[in-house]
């Protein structure tokens, strides 16, 4: 799985419950840019974010933080 350097969408792995089977953010992201890496951790796989927030709003543990992508910050 590809990875974005300096991702604008970050996941707090202490809060994330992907290990318990949660896939909510991966399911709802319209541009489909969140994915599990080899270790089963959620990360931003592609720098194609619309800063729209379904991932952050639907995450049950508030583990996701979306920042405005650097180019338009």
């Amino acid at each position, binding site marked *: 799985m590809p990875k974005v350097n300096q991702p604008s969408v970050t996941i707090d792995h202490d809060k994330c419950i992907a290990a318990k089977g949660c896939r909510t953010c991966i399911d709802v992201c319209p541009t*489909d840019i969140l994915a599990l890496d080899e270790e089963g951790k959620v990360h931003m796989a592609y720098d194609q974010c619309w*800063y729209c927030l*379904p991932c952050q709003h639907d995450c049950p543990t508030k583990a996701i933080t979306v920042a405005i992508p650097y180019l338009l910050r």
Partner: protein
Amino acid sequence: MSAITTAIRQMETDVLVIGGGTAGPLAAIKAKEKAPGTRVLLLDKANVKRAGAIAEGMDSVNNAVIPGYATPEQYVKEITIANDGIVNQKAIMAYATRSYDMIRELDSWGVKFEKDETGAYAVKKVHHMGAYVLPMPEGHAIKKFIYKQIRRLGIAVSNRLIATRLLVAPDGRIAGTMALDSRSGEFVVIRAKAVILCTGSAGRLGLPASGYLFGTYENPCNAGDGYSMAYHAGAELSGLECFQINPLIKDYNGPACAYVTGPFGGFTVNAKGERFIKSDYWSGQMMLEFWRELESGNGPVFLKLDHLADETVTRIENILHVTERPTRGLFHEGRHTDYRSDLVEMHISEIGLCGGHSASGVWVDENARTTVPGLYAAGDLCNVAHNYMMGAMVFGMIAGQDAVDYAAGLDLPEFDAGQVEREHARVLAPLERAEGLDPTDVEYKLRRMVNDYLQPPKVTRKMEIGLDRFAEIREDLKRVKAGNPHELMRALEIHAIVDCAELAARASLFRTESRWGLYHYRSDFEERNDAEWFCFVEVRKGPDGKPEIFKRPVDPYIVPVGDDERDAYNQLRIETAAE
């Protein structure tokens, strides 16, 4: 070939709805309600639950036609004038007469619209002439309520399927679609009796000024796939020279939004703090004045809220920073912009194609029928001028209801297997190349060229050069390499973007006049020429496989427009501010 690329999944349904954003869910719901025995399949390249423009709600209904505030006739007249007369009034009337009932139905589903003390809808005036804006300060949950109806009716939903080409029967009628599963890489063939295209605008046409490919005004999943699919299936496309260009928060590239702040007392000003336009309602004429001000010594342009009371600003923030584009507050924070003390710098968006905001798209009649039997279009994809969110829903409904009648008693149309073979090869080719161009680079270059050659003011020679560049990029597409199904989806979207760019350039070159303010402002044909160009410009795929461009007359009006009213939108500039 790897295992991933050889699997072909087969599906079948009666009514297939492609695109589960705004129009699509209503099409599916209304088809199923009308004929519960009909098989309805709703698919989206994203997840229907959170797909489309309304995923985080909407600030307002931009075009509510509510008894007591406006009649359908007044609405049809205003939209006709705002579009320099080139509209299909029957289609706009089909929306206008159903607008109120749709709002009431959404209300009954739980969607919240602003009401006054008496419980009546609190409509505001933002348009130049009449009052049509119904605020939705708590509108963020609209998609959830719609999704509940999809579940209630047990409508089949398929997510992460990107439709790539429609299937056409030998007699020209629609037979289904082909699609790619963007997770598994499977190629999918879906047979259907009727297909309703609800794939939204062409939102990844121009490159945003930020240079960020996904920093678009429109939901970037809407790459223009529907225009391309309809075109290749033989449907007529309309008004592709009438671009969408919006006034947006600079760099953030989302609406500020004047419709929300206007009723609270906010307005657009130039660098001197002066108003220069009479109406903040988005029209080509307004955008022309906006662009002129940006380019003049009075620029840039700002949204002014710093004169408002603190509580008013808080109310505005509770809308703008919560619904529709909820990262607006985060962006302002990063730029240290506080509405209480600072003006909000505005800019114009990249170009796009979007019937919902301007007047372009797949040609449909008042029944949402395209020119291909069994193929419907609704929402931003179809040319029903300024149709916005509520128009998308109403046209979705109209399409869904008409499609079940069309499909009733029909067998699944047969189709030539060659179509599937060719499409299978086209779709999967980038995955099979050992090396090649990166889709991101190709998309960046294409969209930069769109800016360089198509962004108004339009210039003949520039558009001709643009066509050469687009043709070269088409060749480059034969060398694109995708490393996985996600990249493959992105690679395929570029095919649609280049189709939209070419057709938009050709339609723009064909109409040798200026019209719709900035949307079709040609500096080498500056005047509007009603004698020759009071008509639609249409394009379809010709028998030789090349685009065929022709005029379609404007049907006689069902709502007459007086000579004293027809130019009302051409007088939007406040004269004192002009230098």
